[in-house]
C-alpha cells in the first residue's frame, strides 16, 4: 500500500514534467520567432549606418593628418569598402549566419573578442547600478507609499525627482570634485590602480573603490525611476478590496505592506527591470565617459564617430539578442510571480 507522500509524488510528477515540457516548447517557439526579428534588425542597422556620410577610412586618414591617394585607395580595398553596398550587406549577413561578427579594422581585432574584453566592466557597472537602484527603489517606494502625503513621502519624492532630473554627467563630475579632489577618499576614474600589481583581496578592494562613484552615479538615475514606480504601484494595490479584507482580519500595517501588497506591487518593477537588463550592453555612455570606465557603451559611442561599422553592428546585434532573451525571461518570471498569468 503506497504511503501518502508517495501518492502525492506520483500525482505531482506528471504535472511537473508537463510544466517543464510546456516551458521548453514555449522557449523553442519564442526563439524561432526571434530569429527573423534579429535578422531584420541586422539588415536595418546595416542600412541605417550606410546613411552616415564618410567612412572609417576618412576618419583614419583624417586622424593621420593626411595621406597619399594610393594609401587611401588601398585602405578602402582592405576594409572591403570599395565593394557595392549589396555585396557588403551579403558578406555581413553571411558572417552573422555563421556567428562571426566580423573584424574591426580600426582596432585590428575580431569584433567578438573586442566585445568580450569590454563585457566584464560593463556587467560589473550595470549589475551594480541596477542592483542598488532596484533594492533602494523598492525600499524607498514602500516607505513613501506607507507614508503617503506625509513629510517623509514628500522628501522621498523630491529626492527621487531631483536625481532623475539632474544630468548624469554633472552628478558624476560633482561627485568627483567632492570625493576625489576635495576629500581625496576615492579615485577619480579608471577601473583599478594600474601598475600596482595587486592580487586577490587587495585587487577586489581596489576595484570596489573605483566602482563606488560610477555605480552610485548611474544608480541615482535608475533609483528615481524605481522609487516612483514602486510608490505608484503600492498605492494602487493598497486600494484593492483584499487589502481591506486583510486589515479587517486584524493584520498589522507592516504585515499588510510586506506580505499582502508588496508581492503584487512588484509586477511593474519586473517589467522595468527587464527593460533595463535589455539595454545592459549599451551601458551608460555618459557615466563611462566621465569616469573613464572601459565599458561597451563608450566602445559603441566611439565606433559611431570612427565609422567602425563592423564593431557597431556587432554591439547592436548582441544588444538586440539580449532584449529578446530578457523579454522571454520576464514573461517566465511573470508567471512565477502571478499564477493567474498564463504562458503562451
Amino acid at each position: 500500500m503506497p504511503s501518502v507522500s508517495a501518492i502525492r509524488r506520483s500525482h505531482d510528477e506528471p504535472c511537473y514534467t508537463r510544466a517543464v515540457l510546456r516551458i521548453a516548447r514555449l522557449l523553442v517557439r519564442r526563439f524561432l520567432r526571434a530569429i527573423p526579428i534579429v535578422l531584420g534588425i541586422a539588415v536595418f542597422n546595416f542600412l541605417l549606418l550606410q546613411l552616415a556620410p564618410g567612412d572609417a577610412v576618412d576618419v583614419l586618414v583624417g586622424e593621420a593628418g593626411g595621406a597619399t591617394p594610393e594609401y587611401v585607395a588601398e585602405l578602402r580595398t582592405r576594409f572591403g569598402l570599395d565593394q557595392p553596398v549589396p555585396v557588403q550587406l551579403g558578406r555581413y549577413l553571411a558572417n552573422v549566419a555563421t556567428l562571426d561578427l566580423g573584424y574591426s579594422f580600426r582596432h585590428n581585432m575580431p569584433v567578438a573578442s573586442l566585445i568580450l574584453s569590454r563585457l566584464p566592466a560593463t556587467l560589473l557597472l550595470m549589475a551594480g547600478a541596477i542592483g542598488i537602484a532596484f533594492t533602494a527603489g523598492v525600499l524607498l517606494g514602500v516607505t513613501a507609499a506607507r507614508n503617503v502625503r506625509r513629510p517623509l513621502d514628500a522628501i522621498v519624492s523630491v529626492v527621487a525627482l531631483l536625481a532623475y532630473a539632474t544630468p548624469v554627467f554633472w552628478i558624476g563630475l560633482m561627485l568627483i570634485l567632492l570625493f576625489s579632489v576635495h576629500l581625496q577618499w576615492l579615485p577619480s576614474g579608471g577601473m583599478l590602480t594600474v601598475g600596482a600589481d595587486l592580487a586577490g583581496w587587495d585587487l577586489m578592494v581596489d576595484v570596489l573603490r573605483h566602482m563606488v562613484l560610477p555605480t552610485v552615479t548611474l544608480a541615482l538615475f535608475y533609483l528615481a525611476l524605481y522609487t516612483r514606480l514602486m510608490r505608484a504601484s503600492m498605492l494602487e494595490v493598497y486600494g484593492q478590496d483584499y487589502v481591506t479584507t486583510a486589515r479587517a482580519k486584524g493584520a498589522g500595517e507592516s504585515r499588510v505592506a510586506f506580505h499582502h501588497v508588496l508581492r503584487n506591487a512588484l509586477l511593474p518593477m519586473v517589467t522595468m527591470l527587464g527593460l533595463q537588463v535589455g539595454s545592459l550592453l549599451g551601458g551608460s555612455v555618459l557615466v563611462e565617459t566621465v569616469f573613464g570606465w572601459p565599458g561597451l557603451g563608450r566602445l559603441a559611442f566611439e565606433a559611431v564617430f570612427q565609422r567602425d561599422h563592423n564593431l557597431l553592428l556587432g554591439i547592436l546585434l548582441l544588444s538586440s539578442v539580449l532584449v529578446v532573451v530578457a523579454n522571454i525571461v520576464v514573461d517566465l518570471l511573470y508567471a512565477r510571480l502571478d499564477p493567474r498569468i498564463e504562458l503562451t
Partner: protein
Amino acid sequence: MNSLMSLLRGALGALTTLAVLASASHAQQPTPGGTLTMVVQPEPPTLVSAFNSAGPIGVVSTKMLEGLLTYDFDMVPKPVLAESWKVSPDGKTITFNLRKGVKWHDGRDFTSADVQFSAMKVWKELHPRGRSTFAKLTAVETPGPLVAIFKLSEASPYMMSALSGYESQVLPKHVYDGTDMAQNPANGKPVGTGPFILKEWQKGNFILLEKNPNYWDKGRPYLDKIVMRIIPDAAARSAAFETGEVLLGGFSPVPLSDVKRLEASGKFDVETRGYEYLAPIFLLEFNLKNKYLQDKRVRHAIAHAIDQNLVVKTVWYGFGKPATGPVPSVLTQFYNGNVPKYAFDPKRAEALLDEAGFPRAGGGKRFKLIHDYLPYGADYQRTAEYLKQALGKVGIDVEIRSQDTAAFLKRVYTDNDFDMSSNFFYALPDPTIGVQRIYWSKNIKKGVPFSNASGYSNPEMDRVIEATQVEHDRKARRALIDSMQVMAQDDLPVLDLFEVRFFTLASKKVQDHTLSGEGVYSSFSKVWLKK
C-alpha cells in the same frame, strides 16, 4: 600649547627651507625610479606609427620604437639610431652610420637590414605621407651591418626632416618581413629598440609600459614604468590632474578654461614648446568654385574683416599666435614674415567688397556663405561663431553648419560641397611635406583629407613648389620657399588665421619632459620624477 605649536611651525619652516635648498642644489641630478602616470587622448587604435601617423599613436609608440634621428627646437637633426650621417654634395646619397650594441626588445641585434626593410617596405609603401616623402628613394644599400646608404634619384632635402621616431619608425625586419604588416600582432605589442617595453594594454582603460633594462643608452631610462590612462572626458582629466592621479598630458589635455586655475595652484607646468615638429596652424579654406570667393578681392576682404588677435586671445585663451602666412614662425629655417598682410580693418573690407561688385542689399546683406568647421571641440565651434559675427559686420551672411569629423572630411575633401571651412593642418618641419599640399594643383585629389580642397591652381605656384622639392642648395631653396609664401598670401586661396599652440600639462614633479621639438613624441628616456 600655543608656544609649542609655534615652535613646531618654526621647525617645520626651517625644514622646508632646507629641503628647498637641497632640492635646488640637486636640480640637475636626475633620480632614477618611479612611475609616470599620464593621459593619452583619444585612445590609439594601434601602437605602431610606422604606417599610421595619428597623433595618439605617436605619443605611445615613440616610447618603444625609435627612428634614425630626433630634432631640437630649431629642427636641427640629432642622433638616435643613426650616430652620424653624411650627405653627398649632389644630395643623392646619404650615408648613415648606425649605433653599435642596439638590441630589439626580443634580444636580436639591430642592423642596417632593419633600416633597409623599414625604408623600402614600410615608410615608402605603407606610411600615409611616406609615399611622397620617400618618392625619390630608389634603394638602401647595406655594405655593413651598421652602415645604411640611402640612394635617391633626385635630391630630397626635406627627407632629412622626416626621420624621427614618430614619422619614420625603424621596425624589426625579422618580425614583419613576409607578414601581412597591417595585421601583424606586433602592432599591438611592439618589438622595438626604445627605452620602454609594452607590459599590458587594456583597451579603453590603460596602457602600461615598463623600463627596458637593456636599453642602449646606459643608465636610462630613469623611469621604472609609464602608465598611460585613457580618460575620455576633458573635465574628468582636469580632476585627475588635480588629485595627482595623472602627472602629465600632451596636446592640450584639459579644457583651455581650466588652465589658469591649474596653473595658479602652483603645482603644474604649462609647456607650449615641443610641438615645433608638427607646427600646427589654423586656417580657413575657401572653395574657389564659389562665385563670390572666386574673386580675390572678396578673399582679401574676409582677411581684413577678421581680428586674428581677438580669436587668439578670447576664443583660444591665448594659446596661439596670429599667423602671417602658410609657414608658421616656429619653423625658423623657412618662415618669411615679409609677405602681404591684411590688418584688421572692416572699413577696408567693405570697400573691397563694394569694389568687387557685391554691395549691401536688402537688410544690409551682400551675400551668403555656408561655413563648415572641423568638429574637434568647443574652441573650434566658438571660432566659427566668431567668424559668423565678424563677417556679418561687413555684410557677409554666414550660416554655420555642424557635423561629425567623418562627415566634415567627406564633405570638404570628397564631395567638395562647401563654401568656406575652418580647419587645422600640421605644417610639419619642411614645407615640402606639410605646406605644399594645400597649394599644389597636382594635389587637388578627391577623397584625400588635407589635400588642396580650395581648387587653387596657379602655374607659377606649381613651378616654385616643384622646384622646392628637388633644390638641394640651401640658399636657393630658401629663396623659393620665400617666394611661395608671398604668392600664397597674395592669392589667398586659404587664410591662415593663427598658429595653434598646443600645451603639455605636467606636474612640477615631472622633470625634463620637453627637451626637443618632438615634445611628447620623444622617447622619454630622460624624463625623471622629483622625489
